[in-house]
C-alpha cells in the first residue's frame, strides 16, 4: 500500500497550527467557504452520505444519514452539539485535536451547522479540559474576526454562533441524551429513546450530536470530495481513524492510520511493541467498554466490521495493551470501579449491578472469592444487559464477561490460591 497521507493529523506538528493564520495557510477554511458559497445545505449532507463517514464517538453510525433524519419543514430551531466529553477510558484523541487543531474542529462544526441549518452550535467539552476549552474559545474569537463565525457569513445570509460549554466531570454526559439534559442545566440523566434527538433533542428541538473526530473529517470531505474519501480505509469503514495507544506499549500516543489497519501492525510497527520486550497478554481494542482480545487473536483489522466479527468492537478506538505481568482480575476490578462510580443511578440493574460486580471482583482479587462468585458475576451481567435506559449499563458488562470467558483459569487460580497468578502483579511506578 502507498504511504498513507494523514488527513486529520497532517499538520498537527506544525508550529502554531492552533492559530488561524497558520491554519489558513495550510488550507484551512477553504472548505467552509466552498460549502457556504457554492453548495446547498442538502448537497453538503449528500456529499457526507456518499463519503460513508461513520461516527467516531463509539457507535459508528453513518454521519450523513443521521443528519438526514432531521424532520423537514418544521419551524423549530435545529441545534448541533459537538460531543467533546471524551471520557471513555483509553481514549484521548479528541483532546489532541482540540488542543492542537482547534480550527479544524471548528471548521467541521461550522460546515455541519450549515448543512443542518443550525444557527447555534454547542461544543460540550469535559470540564477537566480547561486548556482545550481555552483553545476552542480562542479559535472562535479568531474565526469571528475573519467573518467565519457570527452573522451573514460570506455575505450569504448564513448566521452561525458557536458556544463552548464545559461539563462538570461525569462520564455519563458523553452519552448523547445525558449530554442534552446536562446542557439544559440539569443533572446528566440519560433519557429514554425514542424520541431520538434528531426529532426532539435540546430544548425539545431537533438536534444532531456528533463526535469531535467525526466533525474534523468534514472539511476534508468537502474539499476533496466523497469519492476521494472512500478510497481510504475499507469499503464499509471509510477514511482514517485515530487510534489511541496506551498501557504497556513502548510508544503510547495517537496514531492516525487508515481504517482496517491490522492490529498487529498498529501495535508492533507504529506503537513500538510491548514494553520492555515482554509478552503480550491481551488487548482491549476500543475503549474500556469492549470485550478483550487475547494475544493470539490480534491478527484482526481495526475497522467496525472486522472487530465485530472477532467478537469485540472498534468503539472509540482506545487501544489498551496489557502485557504478561498484568493481573486480569485486577484489570476487571479497576474497570468495574469506573462503571460503578459513573453509573447515574437511574436504572436498578445498572446501579445495583455495577455495585455488586465491583464488590465481588474486589473479594476475588483479595483472596476471599468462591467459585460460585463467577456464576454470580455472569448472572449480574445477564441482568444488566438490555435492561437499562442507556448503554452505560451494557458497557459495564464486557470487561467482566469477556475476562471471565477468556481468562477463567486465572480467576479460578485467584479463588483457590487466594493470590495473583505467579508473574502477575499490580503495575509499578517508575
Amino acid at each position, binding site marked *: 500500500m502507498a504511504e498513507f497521507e494523514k488527513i486529520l493529523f497532517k499538520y498537527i506538528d506544525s508550529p502554531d497550527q492552533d492559530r488561524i493564520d497558520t491554519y489558513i495557510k495550510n488550507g484551512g477554511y477553504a472548505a467552509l467557504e466552498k460549502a457556504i458559497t457554492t453548495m446547498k445545505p442538502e448537497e453538503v449532507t449528500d456529499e457526507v452520505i456518499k463519503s460513508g463517514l461513520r461516527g467516531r464517538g463509539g457507535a459508528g453510525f453513518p454521519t450523513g444519514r443521521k443528519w438526514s433524519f432531521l424532520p423537514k419543514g418544521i419551524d423549530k*430551531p435545529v441545534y448541533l452539539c459537538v460531543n467533546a466529553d*471524551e*471520557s*471513555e*477510558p*483509553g*481514549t*484521548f484523541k*479528541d*483532546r489532541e485535536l482540540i488542543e492542537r487543531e482547534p480550527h479544524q474542529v471548528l471548521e467541521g462544526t461550522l460546515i455541519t451547522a450549515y448543512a443542518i441549518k443550525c444557527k*447555534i452550535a454547542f461544543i460540550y467539552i*469535559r*470540564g*477537566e*479540559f*480547561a*486548556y482545550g476549552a481555552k483553545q476552542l474559545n480562542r479559535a472562535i474569537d479568531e474565526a469571528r474576526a475573519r467573518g467565519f463565525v457570527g452573522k451573514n457569513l460570506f455575505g450569504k445570509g448564513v448566521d452561525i454562533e458557536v*458556544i463552548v*460549554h*464545559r*461539563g*462538570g*466531570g*461525569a*462520564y455519563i454526559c458523553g452519552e448523547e441524551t445525558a449530554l442534552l439534559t*446536562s*446542557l*439544559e*442545566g*440539569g*443533572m*446528566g440523566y440519560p433519557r429514554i429513546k425514542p424520541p431520538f434527538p434528531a426529532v426532539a433533542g435540546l*430544548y425539545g428541538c431537533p438536534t444532531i450530536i456528533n463526535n469531535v473526530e467525526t466533525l474534523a473529517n468534514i472539511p476534508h470531505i468537502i474539499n476533496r470530495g466523497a469519492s476521494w474519501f472512500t478510497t481510504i480505509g475499507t469499503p464499509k469503514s471509510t477514511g482514517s481513524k485515530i487510534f*489511541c*495507544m*496506551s*498501557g*504497556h506499549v513502548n510508544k*503510547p*500516543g*495517537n496514531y492516525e492510520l487508515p481504517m482496517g489497519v491490522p492490529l498487529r501492525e498498529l501495535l508492533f510497527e507504529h506503537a513500538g511493541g510491548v514494553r520492555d520486550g515482554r509478552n503480550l497478554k491481551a488487548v*482491549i481494542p476500543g475503549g*474500556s467498554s469492549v470485550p478483550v482480545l487475547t494475544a493470539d487473536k490480534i491478527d484482526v483489522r481495526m475497522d467496525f466490521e472486522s472487530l465485530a466479527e472477532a467478537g469485540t468492537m472498534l468503539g472509540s478506538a*482506545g487501544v*489498551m495493551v*496489557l502485557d504478561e505481568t*498484568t493481573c486480569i482480575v*485486577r*484489570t476487571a476490578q*479497576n*474497570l468495574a*470501579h*469506573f462503571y460503578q*462510580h*459513573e453509573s447515574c443511578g437511574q436504572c436498578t440493574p445498572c446501579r445495583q449491578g455495577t455495585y455488586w460486580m465491583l464488590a465481588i471482583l474486589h473479594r476475588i482479587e483479595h483472596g476471599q472469592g468462591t467459585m460460585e462468585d463467577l456464576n454470580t458475576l455472569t448472572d449480574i451481567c445477564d441482568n444488566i444487559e438490555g435492561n437499562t435506559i442507556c448503554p452505560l449499563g451494557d458497557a459495564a458488562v464486557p470487561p467482566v464477561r469477556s475476562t471471565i470467558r477468556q481468562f477463567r483459569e486465572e480467576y479460578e487460580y485467584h479463588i483457590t490460591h487466594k493470590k495473583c497468578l505467579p508473574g502477575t502483579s*499490580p*503495575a*509499578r*511506578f*517508575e
Partner: protein
Amino acid sequence: MEKIEKLSDSSIKEIERFKGLYPNRNSAVLMVLHVVHQQFGFLDREALREAAEIMELPYIDFQQAASFYTLFPNKPMGKYHIQVCRTLACHLRGAEELTALLKKILGIGIGEVTNDGLFSLSEVECLGSCGTAPVMQINEIYYENLTRARVDEILDDLRKKARNG
C-alpha cells in the same frame, strides 16, 4: 439582614455574560458553577446564592447540579488540589503506587488537606490523557508521563510558588 457580597467583579461579569448567552438561561448553570469554583476553589454557598440571584434562577437548581457533578468540591481544598487518575491505562503504568507515594510525601489520605493548606489529594477516573500515563491534574493543569523524580520536582515547584506568593 445585611447582604454578603463575595463574588468578585470579574466573576459577576462572567456570570452576567453567561446569563445572556444561551437560548435558555438554565443552560448556564454548569458554567456558573465553574465561575464560582474558579474563584474559590470550591463551591462557596454564599457566593453560589449570590450567583443564583444574578441569574434569576432558583438556588436549588445550582445545588442539585452541584450534587451531581464531581468536579466541584463543596468544601475548601488545598491551594493545590491534586487529582490522580486511577483508571486502567494509568493503573497499568503505576497509578496505585503514584497515589501511595503522594500520600506518603504529603502525609495525608484521599480527600484530606495538608495542615499548611497547600495540598489536597483525590483519586479520579480517566482524565482523557491515557497516552501519557500516569497522569495527575493539579487545579486546571495536567501533569503527564509522571515518574518519581517528576513528582518531587512538581511538588517542590508548587511549594516555591506558594512561598513567593
